[in-house]
């Protein structure tokens, strides 16, 4: 698999996320994929390390059941031979608290030799996410300025 095909896979995953098409995302994962948000706590339903496709489903269920995603804009995608890194703008509203948040996401994807995702780490403003879900929005200003 080439860097170009890996980037195409990520673009397909992002499109599927927008459509709520989790099956397409799972099909791009290796059987033993290691998938996690870079969050040490479990304050958001999608946090926590997941291993294998069955556990990754819980990541998307956690997002879908607790939030309405109102912005998912890919700002940049870059790649190496077997990795893809991305920078995105993201907004959501908590279904429980009604509070909203806007932030950047940073994604790191590593592919195996068959072009399947074997390692995924997603970084977000965890303090802002936890506060928003709890109905306690952060006091300061957004880091999303351009």
């Amino acid at each position, binding site marked *: 698999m080439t860097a170009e095909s890996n980037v195409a896979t990520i673009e397909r995953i992002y499109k599927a996320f927008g459509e709520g098409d989790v099956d397409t995302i799972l099909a791009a994962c290796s059987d033993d994929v290691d998938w996690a948000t*870079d*969050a*040490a*706590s479990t*304050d958001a339903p999608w946090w926590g390390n997941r291993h294998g496709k069955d556990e990754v489903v819980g990541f998307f269920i956690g997002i879908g059941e607790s939030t309405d995603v109102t912005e998912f804009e890919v*700002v*940049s*995608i*870059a*790649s*190496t031979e077997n*990795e*893809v*890194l*991305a*920078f995105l703008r993201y907004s959501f509203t908590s279904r429980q608290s009604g509070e909203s*948040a806007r*932030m*950047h*996401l*940073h*994604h*790191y994807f590593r592919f195996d030799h068959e072009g399947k995702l074997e390692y995924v*780490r997603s*970084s*977000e*403003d*965890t*303090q*802002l996410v*936890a*506060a928003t879900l709890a109905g306690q929005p*952060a*006091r*300061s*200003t*957004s*880091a999303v*300025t*351009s």
Partner: protein
Amino acid sequence: MSAADNVATIQEIYEAFGRGDVNTILGKLADDVDWGPDAAGDGAAWYGIRHGRDEVVDFFDGIAATTEVREFDVKTIASTDNEVLSFIRYGFAPKGGGETTSMNLHHYFRFDDDGKIAYYRGSEDTQLTTNALAGAAA
């Protein structure tokens, strides 16, 4: 400037960070650089968006005044024509006590036409950082 030049600039910045050489980092920035961590809160001394080199000094002063960096391992660097994205393993301990906290960092840099950094956002586990610093201060 080429993508390879931009990657080399980021590698120089990371090396300078490791030896506490802030002036070298500032020399790579545009005059009106927009620089900040992806943190809406104020739980760390380096949080907040900075504009211009003088304000960016506060970012590095904040890290140095409150933490000891125990690990800064650049796992990968990727680039587009005018951007560099990286993935890093990072560990720090609060100054004055506290255990080492480890996490991943994700960096995004955008360059201007002169090869200077015009925009930076760095993502970390802000909840973990804030709790580690608050725990050390308690």
